[in-house]
């Protein structure tokens, strides 16, 4: 709807053209608006960028954030009746049934508006090239929205290039967990942030709510690996995925929040619904093959890093079996054993191990005698 028509319609609030652009961008990022109305805003520059926003625009932006983020989390999996671990106890129900309203509160800072203002008003390479930011600790809502902005801009490599240099994205664990392959680096080790702060409080509730969305995303990620044709890119992406998994699973293990990793168990269960060969991951590698065998094997092993994560989850299962009724972790152990059985962990483990063995140069297929 144009500005004029907005103004004409009696009950609607009047906002400027730039502000309407910001609103379109925000609603698109929150999965509330169509991309064909928001993406042109990201591509075309506004002739005038206002210094401040009108009260009407602020009201609408706040309203969209408030409702949009909640709706996103509900749709991402918060609506499902699930079990979660809280302080070693199992709680069950939909996200809002297993948490109080106070726990579910999402807080946004004005940095969110700065980000939207920059996205709407400036293009990469223009001044200011950097998104305005502060050294303040980001709020939970800020981090969720930044992940959604990252997701919305994935089709725009020039924007992602700028984002990668910004701490608000590069140090955002949720961005890494959702899109680990986007953080591939050409040299050195990927610098994946620590997930400890996501294991309790409102951030852990976001992870609880997003289990279904995370599962979908990781299934998509693993399925897309077989289409990667470039050895170098495969290696770089796999190292980023492996670093994310390592940091995330370490944090889950340390904090006793293994329930937050159940999306991974479900992902592997779905992928290994039948027996697979390593070609599912590395079958697309056709570009210039690395000369050294060492490099080839390293890339192949790295490509199977998600499959290898089953070993960690199996170890949790083994530890859980050894817990007795009087142990402090008894309920958490029972919970993980239940999840392992529900998702047929043993079959998944056998199939994962078979695939991992197939790429090993010294696999023994000869009979013992």
């Amino acid at each position: 709807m144009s500005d004029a028509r907005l103004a004409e319609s009696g009950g609607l609030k009047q906002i400027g053209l730039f502000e309407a652009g910001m609103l379109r961008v925000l609603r698109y990022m929150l999965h509330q608006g169509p991309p064909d109305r928001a993406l042109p805003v990201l591509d075309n520059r506004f002739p005038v960028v206002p210094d401040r926003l009108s009260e009407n625009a602020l009201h609408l932006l706040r309203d969209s954030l408030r409702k949009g983020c909640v709706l996103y989390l509900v749709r991402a999996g918060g609506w499902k009746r699930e079990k979660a671990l809280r302080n070693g106890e199992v709680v069950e129900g939909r996200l809002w049934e297993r948490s109080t309203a106070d726990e579910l509160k999402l807080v946004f800072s004005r940095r969110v508006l700065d980000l939207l203002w920059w996205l709407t008003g400036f293009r990469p390479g223009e001044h200011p090239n950097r998104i305005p930011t502060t050294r303040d600790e980001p709020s939970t809502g800020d981090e969720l929205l930044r992940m959604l902005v990252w997701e919305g801009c994935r089709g725009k490599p020039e924007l992602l290039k700028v984002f990668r240099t910004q701490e608000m994205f590069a140090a955002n664990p949720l961005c890494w967990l959702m899109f680990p392959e986007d953080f591939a680096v050409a040299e050195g080790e990927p610098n994946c942030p620590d997930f400890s702060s996501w294991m309790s409080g409102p951030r852990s509730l976001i992870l609880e709510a997003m289990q279904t969305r995370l599962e979908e995303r990781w299934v998509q990620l693993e399925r897309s690996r077989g289409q990667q044709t470039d050895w170098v890119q495969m290696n770089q992406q796999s190292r980023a995925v492996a670093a994310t998994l390592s940091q995330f699973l370490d944090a889950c293990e340390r904090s006793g929040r293994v329930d937050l990793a159940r999306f991974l168990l479900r992902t592997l269960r779905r992928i290994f619904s039948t027996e697979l060969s390593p070609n599912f991951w590395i079958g697309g590698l056709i570009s210039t093959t690395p000369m050294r065998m060492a490099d080839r094997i390293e890339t192949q092993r790295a490509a199977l890093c998600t499959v290898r994560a089953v070993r960690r989850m199996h170890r949790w299962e083994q530890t859980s079996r050894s817990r007795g009724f009087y142990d402090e972790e008894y309920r958490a152990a029972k919970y993980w054993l239940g999840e392992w059985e529900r998702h047929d962990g043993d079959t998944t483990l056998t199939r994962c191990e078979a695939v991992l063995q197939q790429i090993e140069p010294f696999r023994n297929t000869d009979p013992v005698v």
Partner: protein
Amino acid sequence: MSRAYRIKVAEKLSRDITASDEICSDLEILEILAPEQMGELLKGKLAERGFEEKDGTMTRQGNGVTITVDPKSGEVRVKADATESVELKAEKDDWGYDDVGPSKEIIEKRLQEGLKKDLEKRADAKQQQLQQKATERLEGEMSEVRGELNRVVNEITREALKIKARSLGEIKEMSEDAEAGTLTIKVEV
């Protein structure tokens, strides 16, 4: 009237180039006995096949390939090395004039720089060739090494099963079926 003269420059590059390729993996050793006992069995079998003990690992060299096995962890490294001394020579010439254009020193310097770049490129190409040679050597040896190490693993598995059976009781009967690939041990406990 200007006089033309020909400037000829020769350059030489001597270099020792090295290349290597390596495979690192683990042997599939079943935990039939304690890890130390399995390690000892592996060590013994490898020694029979010409491996020598060195810093706690068993090593054998041959055909430019070094195989190192850690009997404790079952880790295997197969490494192919190749070294070569290369001596590359190149010559280039150009024309200069005594009254116009760049001086003799400038032309010589330019030719030398060009030659050095050419020689570096040729040395890099030699390095690539040597790398390919090392990798081909490793690939060539791999199937034999794999087969040999798998046989060793199977031998120690059989040996370990027999030791285990003896520890359980008196062995009454033992038969090996090569066709079915089975080993049957009957033990009286």
